[in-house]
C-alpha cells in the first residue's frame, strides 16, 4: 500500500455532518486550482444531516490528478471520531493538524506526525467559532503556499451576501490561518511535503464534479425539462438544472413519486420537449413499467441513474455499480435501449449531450449510469467541448395521413409532434398498427417486434467504442466500465512505474457493446475485470456477447470505491 505519489499531496478533512467540511473543501480546492495546481476531491458521507463522521479527500498535484488514493499526507480532524474513521489510511508520513484534544488520547493517531492547531480558539479571537473553518482553510492554503490575495478574493465572493463584517472576519480568519501555517513550517513541525509546481494555465481551467458534468451535458443536449423525485446520489443533477431553469427555459419538476416522473418524461417527449429524469436504483425500479411504455411506443427517454448499493434502501450515500442488469433487463417485453456509463467528466458531458440526440433519432430510452462516487468526485479539466455539439431534434412536420409507426427500411419511423403539421400523433401502449390502433394480429405483432430489433442493429453501429490504452502485446488486459476509469488507470500507471505493462480497455457505453471489443478480448492472454459490484455484471454481458470469460474478476461490494492502492494489490495478483 505504500505508494509514494511524489507529485501530489493528499489532504483529508474529516468530521461530522453539519460542521462545514464542504465549505472548507470548496474554498480550498478553488484556491488551489486558481493558484495553478491540479486538484481532485472526493467526498464520502453518512446518510444523516448532523453528526456521524464524513470525510473529503483532496489531492493537489503538479500533474493532472483524477483518481483516488488512500494515502493521507495531511489530516484535518474536526471531531474526536475523525482519526479512527480513517485509521486504515494513516501512516508514519501522515500529519494530523488540528486541536490536540481530538487526537491526543487516540491510539490510532500515535504513529502519525501530530501538530496541535486550535482553529476554534483563533476563530473566537476574531469574534466567533463560526470562523474556524476559514482558519482551517487558511492553514491548509498556507501550507500549500497558495496566493493569499487570491484566497481573500474567494472569501469575499463566498460571503458577499452575508455583509461586509462577515466577509472581513472570514478574510481575517484565513489570514490568521496562513500565519499559523508559516509558524508550523518555520518550526519544522512537519516533515518535508512533496514539493509541488504550479502552472498558470491550470488556474483558468474548469473545476467540476460528476454531477456538474452530467447536468451541463444535459443542457448542451438541449434538455428543457428535468423531472425527479429526490434520491441520493441523483438529486444534485436535478437541483443544478432547477437552479438554471429560467436561464435556459427548463421546466423543472419535483414530482410526487418516480412513477409520475417517468410518465411525465414520456408526455414531455411526446409533446416535443427534451426531458431528463434523474434518479437512483430504487427510484428506477419504480419506473420499470414506464420504461416498457417508452419501449412499445418508441418514445425517446433519458434517464440518469446515480447508482448506490442495494438491495432496497441499501446504503443511501455509498457507491456501487450494481444496477447494470437492472437497467438492461427492466421492463416487461423486449425493446432496444442504450446504456452509457461515463468514466471521465469529459465523457459525462459529451455522452449526456449525445444521449439526447441518440434518443431522439432512434426513439429509444437512453440510460446514463453514474454512481455516488462519480457524482461526488471533482477535478480540474481544461474545458468542455460544447462548441462542437449540436442539438439534433429529429422531428418532422407531419403531413395529413401521417402514421406514427410507419414501417420503414431501417425500423425508424419519422417522429412528429402534436401541434406541428397536418398529421395526428397517436401513440399507444398496446401492440399497435402503423397508425397506432390496438391490434391482436399475429403478423403485425411480429413485424412491430422486428421493427424494434432493426433499431437495435443500428444502435450497435453507433455504439461508442471502448477506450483502449496500452499495447496490444501486453499479457494482461484490464477491463472496467463507468466510474472506475481513473482509479484503474491510476493503478495501471503505478504498476507501470514498477515495470509492469498492462493494457486497459474501458467501456463508457455498456449496451449495446461495440463490436471492436471482440478483437481485444480475443487477443488478450489474461483478462482481469474490475467492477464495483458483487457478481461481475458487466463480465456476464461480455461473456453473453463475445463468449469470452474473464481470467479474474476483481469485485468490490463493500459500498466503497476502489483506491489506487487496492487495485495495484489486486492487479498484482495476476502478474505473479
Amino acid at each position, binding site marked *: 500500500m505504500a505508494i509514494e505519489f511524489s507529485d501530489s499531496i493528499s489532504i483529508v478533512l474529516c468530521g461530522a455532518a453539519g460542521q462545514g467540511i464542504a465549505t472548507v473543501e470548496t474554498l480550498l480546492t478553488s484556491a488551489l486550482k486558481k493558484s495553478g495546481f491540479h486538484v481532485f476531491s472526493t467526498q464520502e458521507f453518512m446518510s444523516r444531516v448532523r453528526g456521524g463522521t464524513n470525510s473529503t479527500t483532496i489531492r493537489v498535484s503538479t500533474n493532472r490528478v483524477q483518481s483516488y488514493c488512500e494515502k493521507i499526507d495531511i489530516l484535518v480532524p474536526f471531531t474526536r471520531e475523525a482519526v479512527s474513521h480513517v485509521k486504515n489510511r494513516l501512516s508514519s508520513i501522515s500529519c494530523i493538524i488540528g486541536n490536540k484534544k481530538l487526537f491526543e488520547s487516540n491510539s490510532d493517531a500515535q504513529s502519525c506526525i501530530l501538530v496541535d492547531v486550535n482553529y476554534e480558539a483563533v476563530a473566537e479571537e476574531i469574534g466567533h467559532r463560526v470562523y474556524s473553518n476559514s482558519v482551517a482553510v487558511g492553514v491548509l492554503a498556507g501550507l500549500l503556499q497558495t496566493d493569499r490575495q487570491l484566497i481573500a478574493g474567494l472569501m469575499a465572493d463566498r460571503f458577499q451576501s452575508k455583509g461586509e463584517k462577515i466577509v472581513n472576519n472570514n478574510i481575517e480568519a484565513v489570514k490568521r490561518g496562513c500565519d499559523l501555517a508559516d509558524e508550523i513550517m518555520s518550526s519544522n513541525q512537519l516533515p518535508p511535503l512533496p514539493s509541488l509546481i504550479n502552472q498558470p494555465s491550470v488556474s483558468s481551467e474548469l473545476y467540476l464534479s460528476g454531477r456538474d458534468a452530467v447536468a*451541463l451535458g444535459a443542457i448542451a443536449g438541449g434538455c*428543457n425539462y428535468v423531472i425527479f423525485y429526490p434520491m441520493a446520489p441523483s438529486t444534485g443533477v436535478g437541483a443544478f438544472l432547477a437552479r438554471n431553469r429560467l436561464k435556459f427555459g427548463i421546466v423543472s419538476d419535483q414530482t410526487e413519486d418516480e412513477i*409520475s416522473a417517468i*410518465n411525465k418524461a414520456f*408526455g414531455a417527449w411526446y409533446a*416535443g*420537449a427534451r426531458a431528463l429524469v434523474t434518479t437512483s436504483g430504487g427510484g428506477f425500479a419504480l419506473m420499470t413499467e*414506464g420504461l416498457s411504455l417508452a419501449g412499445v411506443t418508441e418514445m425517446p427517454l433519458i434517464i440518469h441513474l446515480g447508482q448506490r448499493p442495494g438491495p432496497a434502501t441499501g446504503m443511501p450515500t455509498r457507491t456501487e455499480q450494481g444496477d447494470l442488469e437492472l437497467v438492461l433487463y427492466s421492463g416487461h417485453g423486449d425493446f432496444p435501449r442504450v446504456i452509457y456509463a461515463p468514466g471521465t467528466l469529459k465523457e459525462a458531458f459529451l455522452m449526456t449531450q449525445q444521449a439526447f440526440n441518440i434518443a431522439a433519432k432512434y426513439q429509444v430510452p437512453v440510460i446514463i449510469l453514474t454512481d455516488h462516487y462519480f457524482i461526488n468526485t471533482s477535478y480540474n479539466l481544461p474545458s468542455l467541448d460544447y462548441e462542437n455539439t449540436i*442539438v439534433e431534434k429529429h422531428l418532422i412536420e407531419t403531413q395529413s395521413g401521417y402514421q406514427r409507426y410507419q414501417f420503414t427500411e431501417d425500423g425508424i419511423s419519422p417522429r412528429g409532434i402534436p401541434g406541428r403539421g397536418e398529421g395526428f400523433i397517436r401513440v399507444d*401502449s398496446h401492440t399497435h398498427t402503423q397508425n397506432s390502433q390496438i391490434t391482436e394480429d399475429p403478423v403485425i405483432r411480429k413485424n412491430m417486434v422486428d421493427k424494434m430489433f432493426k433499431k437495435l442493429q443500428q444502435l450497435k453501429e453507433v455504439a461508442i467504442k471502448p477506450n483502449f490504452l496500452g499495447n496490444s502485446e501486453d499479457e494482461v488486459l484490464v477491463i472496467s466500465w463507468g466510474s472506475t476509469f481513473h482509479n484503474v488507470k491510476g493503478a495501471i500507471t503505478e504498476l507501470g512505474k514498477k515495470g509492469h505493462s498492462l493494457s486497459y480497455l474501458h467501456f463508457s457505453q455498456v449496451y449495446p457493446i461495440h463490436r471492436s471489443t471482440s478483437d481485444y478480448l480475443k487477443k488478450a492472454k489474461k483478462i482481469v475485470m474490475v467492477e464495483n459490484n458483487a457478481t461481475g455484471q458487466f463480465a456476464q454481458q461480455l461473456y453473453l456477447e463475445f463468449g469470452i470469460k474473464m481470467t479474474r474478476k476483481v469485485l468490490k461490494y463493500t459500498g466503497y470505491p476502489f483506491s489506487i492502492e487496492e487495485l495495484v494489490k489486486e492487479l498484482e495478483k495476476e502478474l505473479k
Partner: protein
Amino acid sequence: MMVNSSDFDREVEVHWCPGCGNYPALKILKETLTDLNITPNNAVIVTGIGQAGKFSHFIEGNMINGLHGRYLSNALAIKASNPELSVFAISGDGCTYSEGGNHFLHTMRYNPSIVNIVHDNAVYGLTKGQASPTSEIGVKTGVQTLGVYNTPFNPIAVAIAQNASFVARAFVGHAEQTKEILKKAIAHKGYAFIDLFSPCVSFNRINTYQWYRENTYYLEDSYTPFDQKEAIGRALERSKLPLGVFYINERPTYEDNIQIYKNDSRPLWERDLSKEKLKTLINSFR
C-alpha cells in the same frame, strides 16, 4: 376553418358493449369540441387503460393511450411542454382513483390547464367486473364475493378538500347538461375535473342509467361554487347525488407558475439552446 363533429370520427370498430355509457360520452365530447371549434390538431386526448381508457382509439386526433393509472402525469407534462395544446385527460374510475390515485391527488395541486374526465362506472369494466374505489359497500363481484366493505372513495369531496380549481360531476345520460359542464371545464384556466357517471351495462347491475336518473339532481341555479366548505358539504350528500359544478377556485395555473412562458410563449419544441448562455455557465466553473 370550421370544425365538424365528423372530423373526430375514425373508421375503426368500437370495442365497447352495446349500451355502454362510453358511447354517449364519446358523442358528447365530439360535439362539444365541435361547438367550441377545437380542431383535432390542437387537441390531445390522453387516456389510461380500461374501457374508458380505450376512448382515445375511437376519436380522431392526437392521442396517447398510455399505462393504467398514469395518464394524468402524461397529460400534465404535455401541457407544460406546449401550453398551446388543449389537453384532455380521460380514463376510468379504477385507472384514476385506484392505480392512479397518487397522481390524481397531486396533479390537482399543480393546477395545469387540462380537462380531466373520469368515466365513473363504479366497476372495473375491462377486467370483467371487479369492484372499483367508487363501488358501494355491499356490492358483490367475482372477487368481492362477500361484498365490498371498503368505504367508497368520494372523488368530488377529495378534490375540493384539496382545493382543486374546478370540480364537477356529470352524467352521460344528460347530454346537454354534460356539454354545458364540459364547456365550463374547457373554459376554465387550471385543472378542471369532471367525475362523469357512465353506466357499465355489462358488470354494474346497480348503477344503471335508470339508477343515475333517479338518484341524482342538479345543484340549484342559486348555488355558487366558490365556498370550499359549502362545496364539500354538497359533495358529502349521499341520499341523492348532486350534479353540476361544485367548486371553482381560480388561481395561477401550472403553465403560469413555470414562468418560462412569460416572455416567450413558444412551446419547448420550437426553442433552441443558447450556446452563449451555456458558455457563460461553463465558464462559471473556471
